[in-house]
């Protein structure tokens, strides 16, 4: 079975995100870059299936030279191959999906995994966009997966419950937290990852069709107050919620 996993390099979720001096982009210096957490679930699931059913796992990213770090992290977890589709400048969601879909089509994978979203731009769009462009089934935000012969059954969370969905392969699946427990790369894995070759493809550059107007920090919250300590504070808290904040009856 040929399995692809789409990955992205993102700032660690513990990062304080600052804007650059011109406020035209985020300040990328001093950030700790990691494999997107949702992609870890995707890589883990792909490796598990490859081990059970036989097959190999190729991790793919669309990005600049430094994005190769995401591939190295996935290779260290155990992926067999890696592809960097080189990107220039900024592109929009559809441009990204098109660049990835082109390569995915050529390589004819049976299963394509992605994280449900990247924790930088929080779009959750690339997976379903690629599936639509390729005209293959797609199940998003999955928390459970069974791979059968030519088909998959996945569970996905919906508000207040979950649903179970079946699709034939080839198909695209996006991973939600809860799908599995991603492995830590072993020392051997990390050493091996350094030796594996990364295939480099030139991506087509599409000028962004959206204009970024500005970046800003979220509005500051008005300073709050400490109502008090211990049980004595409870009646006053209830009074404030009722009379000042008016959020309870």
């Amino acid at each position, binding site marked *: 079975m040929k399995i692809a996993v789409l990955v992205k390099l993102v700032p660690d979720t513990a*990062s304080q995100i600052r804007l650059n001096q011109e406020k035209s982009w985020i300040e990328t210096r001093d950030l700790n870059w990691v494999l997107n957490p949702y992609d870890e679930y995707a890589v883990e699931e792909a490796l598990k299936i490859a081990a059970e059913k036989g097959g190999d796992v190729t991790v793919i990213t669309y990005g600049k030279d430094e994005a190769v770090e995401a591939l190295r992290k996935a290779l260290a977890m155990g992926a067999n191959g890696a592809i960097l589709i080189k990107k220039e400048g900024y592109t*929009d969601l*559809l441009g990204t999906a098109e660049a990835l879909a082109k390569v995915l089509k050529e390589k004819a994978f049976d299963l394509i995994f992605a994280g449900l979203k990247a924790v930088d731009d929080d779009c959750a769009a690339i997976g379903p966009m690629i599936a639509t462009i390729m005209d293959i089934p797609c199940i998003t935000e999955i928390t459970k997966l069974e791979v059968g012969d030519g088909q998959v059954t996945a569970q996905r969370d919906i508000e*207040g419950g979950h649903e179970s*969905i079946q699709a034939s392969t080839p198909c695209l699946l996006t991973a939600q937290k809860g799908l599995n427990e991603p492995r830590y790369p072993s020392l051997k894995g990390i050493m091996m990852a350094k030796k594996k070759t990364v295939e480099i493809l030139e991506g087509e550059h599409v000028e962004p069709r959206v204009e970024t107007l500005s*970046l800003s*920090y979220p509005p500051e919250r008005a300073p*709050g107050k400490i109502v008090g300590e*211990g049980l004595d504070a409870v009646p006053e808290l209830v009074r404030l919620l009722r009379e000042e904040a008016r959020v309870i009856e």
Partner: protein
Amino acid sequence: MNVLVYVENRNGAVKKAGLEALSKGKALADAMGGQTAAVIIGVDVDQVVAEVKMHGADKIFVIKKDDLEHYQSAGHLASVVEAVAQFDSKLVMIAATSLGRDLAPRIAAKLGIMYFPDVTGAEFKDGDVVVKRPVYAGKIYMDFKAAKLPVVISTRPNVFDKVEIEGAGEVVELNPEYTLQTKVLDIIQSAAQKLDVSEADRIVAGGRGLKEPENFKLLENLADTLGAAVGASRAVVDAGWRPHSEQVGQTGKTVGPTLYIAVGISGAIQHLAGMRTSKVIVAINKDADAPIFKDADYGVIGDAMQIVPALNEALK
């Protein structure tokens, strides 16, 4: 310029987030001097049609199909695309629920147009559609302009108000063609109509400060009293105390309820990012130096195991 809004329903009950998207869509259509249409897909949708009419839809496209009773990406996609073709739409809007997050990007890809996911602001300014969306789970906001219309926009639930205003509500039935690509085997709703944190207007969330998973019972009781959903910090989800569907923060759900009560949550940056747009934040924590107090409107320093039951009694 016209606006088309897909309004979600589950088993014939309209989703509040869908009406919020419709109201925002109508406001934009009014600003652009256009009309508002809604798309409704399902089987038993009469009640949804009535609700949508009462929230400003001039036109209502109804797709009644037995095999689209539950969400089916290919069938829903074909339905919305058909409605877009019927109604010269410059904006296609949809609430960013689990369904909307799945469907909206497909619409954009199918039509070859741009998509702005999960927006918290959308305006028509000097002839342009300008949207605001949080990135890095809300640590930063970005404003975008669509260089070209139409575009697809998904709206974050609980951000825009739903506004009651009667529209012409002309019903047009559509009969799109599609081939389903997936099969829905089963849908399991949690017992007792459990509220999801992403939809709840009030959330009581707990963290490590609760010491043991069993102590979440105290939060559940308080949540029951308040009609709130129970949320959780990443630490307790990773520890297996609570299901990941309850996690609030950067690798969980981003929420903005009217009332957010954080109990025994210190306030890691990735958690704060996910809840700091809540209207009123209450923090209950033993540690007076916990970062959560900086973002809280009301703080109580003390032991959650004592404070929470007392608060519950006082609110009953």
